[in-house]
């Protein structure tokens, strides 16, 4: 028995790979990035007997060509890092297509174990896959698993362990017929002349990749000593034709084995088809989509509101207790109460909202509906120059822009992805809601809901307009081809959805929490000092900065207090509410702040609406900017995002202030 082995999990997207990974590793997980790219790398550990097992979850891929960065990452890991075993997770309900990746993994010559996942579902449909025959024909052990119920996982690990100990393992080769085999032999002969190359990559595998016209394999050749000889052979070969012939051959091998291995592979219309008839219906599709989204947000706020009120009340009373405790020195009491506890409150207050929304989105995603949402919305997205996949990050943006921008990783094309990132801050995140709630509640008491809805729509409209503009100017091109699998509908499990929710929600706490806390501290310093000035008054530093900015925002009808609040809102948009509380001297208490705002002669419904629009658009919060910087890898785009946001917000607010009185009839 080895002390320690490394297992890589490979498989197509939507086969339950992450469910198996989570079930195997539990909480012993580590999430990082693959070196040099923004693809997430999940690894974890588990034990079986005395053996410590490290498990790496490879990105979900359909093949191991170099179509996307995910595929390159997956295959480079297998080839360069040489895991002891690769577990290929297969969706047993979609056996034939999944086997294509198997044939490619076989060619890599790594010890392989197949996990026939979702076997319960396949069996329910009447599909029977004979594991003994898989072992016989493919020489690969296959294990029946049901990831969502944890079935077969021990057996899977044992099979992997056995396979890791078996040496030498089988050479899995697919025959490609006389003509191609002659080419392979010729190239292999050349490759073997460079011992460095031949020892790193299986020569037959590399030869096959070269014959398929694989750029990534070409790069490897260009860096070797046999470039000229290999190129000479390849020059006479039509790789496009060879590639199709080889794919054809792999599917032929699969087709020949399939009836043996899968005695009754059922492919009839199933429940998914019936659901799809309704949810992607010509007339019902879009209304159903909109209704589901509306329900998701209603539910989020309905469930989150009591939690938010509770957090608000507890943190609020803690803060005022500490600040008013008469603790010496006085500035320390103020720092702890107003600064730290108040700041902590502004981090915690959005956790219910964000987590519940992420939970619901995870349920929709795991059930398979989000793929239908992309299907239904693709035509519209395409019209503005984006792929249907961009829709999902835009949706998550309503919760928090931070996980939304991290979610753009599923978009393959670089420009598609950049545009999706840049427009995301216009999707009105949960942190902006308290600003709307306060201002709409104060100035539009009878139709606050409509006003908030209009703001969300305004954000979407600006996002769409910007996407269109970027596509026409700075990021030209067409959205990448839309080749999206429609996974069968599945009952999502709460465990997986909670895990998803936690992975994304944790990013909010980790990335935003510290920054918001730091922001709250800065607010406190600026509002408190110079020592002796009344908290947040015109004499404090905050007041001074506000007065300095006042001429800039005066055309929008904002005074120095608003300027200060907006300045602080850059740290996190919900701080605008707290800052207004401080500046109007009412604290966080909403009813007295509402009164103070209504009493301010410079604020009316129009100015309040302009302010809400400005808060919606003016610039991403610091946490979002940090993620934009990280995901685009560029300060230039980060700076662009800030500048563009401010300009758009200024223009929109200006138009509202000028045109608003005409529309509202001077209410």
């Amino acid at each position: 028995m080895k002390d320690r082995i490394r297992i890589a999990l490979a498989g197509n997207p939507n086969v339950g790979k992450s469910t198996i990974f989570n079930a195997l590793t539990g909480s012993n997980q580590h999430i990082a990035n693959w070196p040099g790219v923004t693809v997430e790398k999940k690894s974890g550990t588990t034990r079986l007997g005395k053996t410590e097992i490290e498990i790496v979850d490879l990105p979900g891929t359909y093949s191991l060509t170099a179509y996307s960065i995910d595929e390159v990452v997956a295959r480079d890991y297998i080839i360069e890092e040489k895991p002891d075993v690769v577990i290929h997770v297969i969706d047993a309900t979609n056996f034939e297509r999944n086997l294509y990746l198997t044939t490619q993994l076989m060619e890599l010559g790594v010890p392989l174990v197949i996990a026939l996942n979702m076997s319960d579902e396949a069996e329910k449909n009447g599909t029977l896959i004979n594991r003994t025959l898989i072992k016989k024909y493919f020489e690969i052990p296959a294990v029946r698993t049901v990831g969502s119920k944890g079935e077969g996982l021990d057996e899977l690990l044992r099979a992997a362990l056995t396979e890791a100990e078996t040496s030498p393992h089988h050479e899995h080769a697919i025959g490609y017929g006389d003509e191609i085999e002659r080419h392979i032999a010729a190239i292999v002969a050349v490759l073997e002349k460079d011992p460095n190359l031949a020892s790193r990559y299986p020569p037959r595998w590399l030869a096959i990749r070269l014959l398929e016209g694989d750029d990534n394999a070409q790069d490897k050749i260009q860096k070797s000593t046999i470039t000229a000889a290999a190129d000479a052979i390849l020059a006479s070969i039509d790789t496009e034709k060879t590639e199709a012939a080889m794919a054809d051959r792999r599917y032929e091998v699969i087709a020949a084995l399939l009836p043996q291995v899968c005695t009754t592979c059922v492919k009839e219309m199933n429940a998914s088809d019936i659901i799809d008839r309704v949810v992607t219906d010509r007339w019902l599709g879009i209304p159903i989509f909109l209704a589901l989204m509306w329900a998701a947000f209603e539910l989020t706020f309905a469930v989150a509101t009591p939690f938010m009120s509770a957090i608000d009340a507890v943190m609020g009373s803690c803060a005022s207790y500490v600040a008013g405790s008469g603790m010496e020195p006085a500035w320390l009491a103020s720092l702890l109460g107003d600064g730290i506890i108040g700041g902590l409150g502004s981090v915690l207050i959005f956790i219910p909202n964000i987590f519940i929304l992420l939970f619901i989105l995870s349920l929709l995603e795991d059930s398979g509906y989000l793929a239908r949402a992309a299907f239904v919305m693709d035509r519209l997205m395409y019209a503005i120059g984006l792929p249907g996949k961009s829709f999902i990050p835009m949706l998550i943006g309503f919760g928090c822009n931070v996980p939304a921008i991290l979610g753009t990783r599923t978009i393959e094309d670089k420009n598609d992805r950049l545009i999706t990132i840049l427009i995301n801050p216009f999707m009105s995140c949960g942190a902006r809601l308290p600003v709307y709630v306060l201002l709409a509640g104060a100035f539009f008491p009878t139709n606050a809901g409509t006003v908030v809805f209009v703001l969300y729509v305004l954000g979407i409209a600006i996002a769409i307009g910007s996407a269109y503009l970027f596509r026409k100017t700075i990021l030209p091109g067409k959205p990448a081809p839309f080749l999206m699998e429609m996974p069968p509908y599945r009952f999502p499990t709460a465990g997986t959805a909670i895990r998803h929710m936690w992975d994304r929600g944790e990013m909010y706490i980790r990335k935003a929490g510290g920054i918001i806390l730091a922001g709250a501290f800065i607010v406190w310093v600026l509002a408190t000092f110079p020592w002796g000035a009344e908290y947040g008054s015109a004499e404090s530093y905050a007041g001074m900065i506000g007065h300095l900015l006042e001429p800039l925002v005066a055309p929008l009808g904002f005074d120095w207090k608003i300027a200060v609040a907006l300045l602080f809102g850059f740290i996190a948009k919900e701080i605008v509410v707290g800052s207004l509380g401080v500046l109007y001297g009412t604290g966080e208490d909403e009813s007295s702040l509402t009164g103070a705002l209504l009493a301010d002669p410079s604020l009316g419904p129009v100015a309040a609406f302009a302010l809400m629009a400005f808060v919606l658009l003016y610039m991403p919060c610091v946490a979002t900017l940090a993620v934009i910087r990280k995901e685009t890898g560029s300060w230039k785009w980060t700076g662009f995002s800030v500048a563009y946001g401010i300009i758009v917000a200024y223009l929109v607010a200006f138009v509202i202030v000028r045109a608003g009185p005409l529309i509202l009839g001077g209410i």
Partner: protein
Amino acid sequence: MDDSEERTGSVTRCEPVTTLDMISPPGSCRVASISAPAMVRKRLLALGFIPGAAIEAVRAAPLGDPVEYRIKGYTISLRKEDARLIAVTPGCA
């Protein structure tokens, strides 16, 4: 070496070759050839769009595009613009 463009074998000639976007759902056909840029072609091949494969156009999205297809026992959606890159022979399934 056979230089003929024809890929015989699994492809049966039924009707003149057209492109996949012309097959309106519900309808069926078989793949004849793919003329897409390398990256898209590779993905299509991996997804089972190999010459001779049976495709069933299942349904169109509410706005008419993309279209959902069934191939090799699973479903995938393609935009008409991309489906145009796939030459097919209708009525052969």
